[in-house]
């Protein structure tokens, strides 16, 4: 057997072996199931805005790459041109975090299974939720929180449609819907 063939086979085998490892890791990647937790920017990143911007776009891309399972069950094509596409945290420790709106319900609170886990002393564990109603409007509903949810300046008592670019305040955190 020629030296060349053996070298090709030697390197070929290593390549195949590594290919297997990479495929296995890809399977793990696609196998991540369980709770879907939104990555939140840490305090350190909030101090470095130029980095948090990149983080944000990457995160958004990831959100869009993995459509939530309920897509299509609600909303669909009903949303008009003015429909918001993302939810942005504008104040508080999570400043800069965005969540793409794709018809899914977003829960806010300190509980670990919330879509946006609030690290805020004034937030309840299940504080509020934001959902899409039948008419394609995004609604915020306070889930009986202790310190209340404020839309602009007024405390919410009933589920209320959210206007664009109006801040929702929960403790020290402010959240806005953006196009």
């Amino acid at each position: 057997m020629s030296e060349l063939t053996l070298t090709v086979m030697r390197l070929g085998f290593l390549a195949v072996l590594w290919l297997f490892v990479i495929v296995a890791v890809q399977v793990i990647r696609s196998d991540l199931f369980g709770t879907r937790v939104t990555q939140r920017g840490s305090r350190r990143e909030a101090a470095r805005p130029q980095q948090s911007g990149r983080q944000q776009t990457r995160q958004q891309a990831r959100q869009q790459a993995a459509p939530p399972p309920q897509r299509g069950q609600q909303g669909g094509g009903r949303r008009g041109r003015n429909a918001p596409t993302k939810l942005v945290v504008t104040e508080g420790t999570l400043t800069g975090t965005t969540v793409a709106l794709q018809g899914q319900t977003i829960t806010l609170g300190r509980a670990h299974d919330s879509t946006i886990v609030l690290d805020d002393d004034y937030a309840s564990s299940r504080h509020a939720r934001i959902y899409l109603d039948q008419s394609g409007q995004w609604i915020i509903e306070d889930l009986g929180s202790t310190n209340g949810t404020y839309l602009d300046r007024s405390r919410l008592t009933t589920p209320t449609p959210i206007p664009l670019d109006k801040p929702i305040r929960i403790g020290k955190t402010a959240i806005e819907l953006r196009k």
Partner: protein
Amino acid sequence: MSSSTNSPTHHTSTIGAIGAPSRRNTELALLVFAVAIPVFAYANVGLAISDQVPSGLLSYGLGLGLLAGVAHLAVRKFAPYADPLLLPLATLLNGLGLVVIWRLDQSKLLQSLPNFVTAAPRQLLYTALGIALFVVVLIFLKDHRVLQRYTYISMFSALVLLILPLVPGLGANIYGAKIWINIPGLGSLQPGEFAKIVLAVFFAGYLMVKRDALALASRRFMGLYLPRGRDLGPILVVWAISILILVFETDLGTSLLFFGMFVIMLYVATERTSWIVFGLLMSAAGAVGVASFEPHIQTRVQAWLNPMREYELSRQITHDGILHSDQLQQALWAFGSGGTLGSGWGQGHSDLIRFAANSDFVLATFGEELGLAGIMAILLIYGLIVERGVRTALAARDPFGKLLAIGLSGAFALQVFVVAGGVMGLIPLTGMTMPFLAYGGSSVLANWALIGILIRISDTARRPAPAPVSSPDAEMTQVVRPS
């Protein structure tokens, strides 16, 4: 087995289980890949050694493929939601082990040794038995929580398994380590490999009951939670047993494996870092203490600290009554001559290790013929198996399953560390074998059983919650649930 069986039907929250599909087809694809790689390697060895595709290629390929197929069908039937990676990863390691054992069988040098046996057909037989055991575990262990009932029986049988090698007439002293038993007509067996699994069952059952006492009753001192004196009891007992293993069986690896497994499970059960600190201190003190008077351990430590001197002593006639071995130095040379990309299948000289080249030192052949790149891939595959085990523990819903999965994967990881570390000269060499790669029936059987239990736990953990059954009782007793 489609993924759509579990789409969430409630609209209140996006968070929660995103439907876990069964992933059996992924497993099958990976399994085909995992069988193809050893077949490729096998052809490669044949071409390198004798310029022709080995005649046994078809039978080995079919044999391995058939075994993998049987295992896959068993998983499909009895554990449809199990982790898709555990089986292919284990199959690949087992297949590569077969290839290396076959390759070392071809070595003229090893064939000239007095106690040479053609190991590859036997290893294939052991693999078949291992897969059979794997299938038996899947069939008969319908729910891993059943094992919880046998907590104290497990403790007892683990102790028996550990003591067996010391029974006169049954135990066999093979090159200083007394971790073997001879069964007339069947050959020798390493009961420690099985004790590993049984002991994990005991620790999981015991810690599940006692973990609150161990975790909560403690004082804080210098940032560490110190357990109460009386709660130190169990760890002291396990420590004492592992020290006894070290003294009487003179095997550092077995001792380290059991104590390490206990400490890992204790840490996972109680979330107290202090246990790890205690464990490390105790095992270090124990190892140093025993090494100070046990000659066999001292020899091993000497060989580890200075393998070259040991190599030279093995070339001379010494009269100190100690068996000097050049194995470690030969293994280190094998790793060294392999370099980054290795010498290629069948072109290394790892047979210079002579005795145990295909069992304890099997990693050296990989190191020489596949190089650093190959060794890293092999270690990563081990790492992935451990990762899947830990992931299974995370996903398991019952504390017993969690602890058992952590214990088994921790023991697996420790064993890989102890063997790989020993062969590479990081820690003193021990008498244990690389799971799946090394030649040896007990190791292959026990590790297939271990993978079987992990697959069972992962099936339970990943199985979607059953749809509520409308039983006749439900109408009579209405349960009002919030939300």
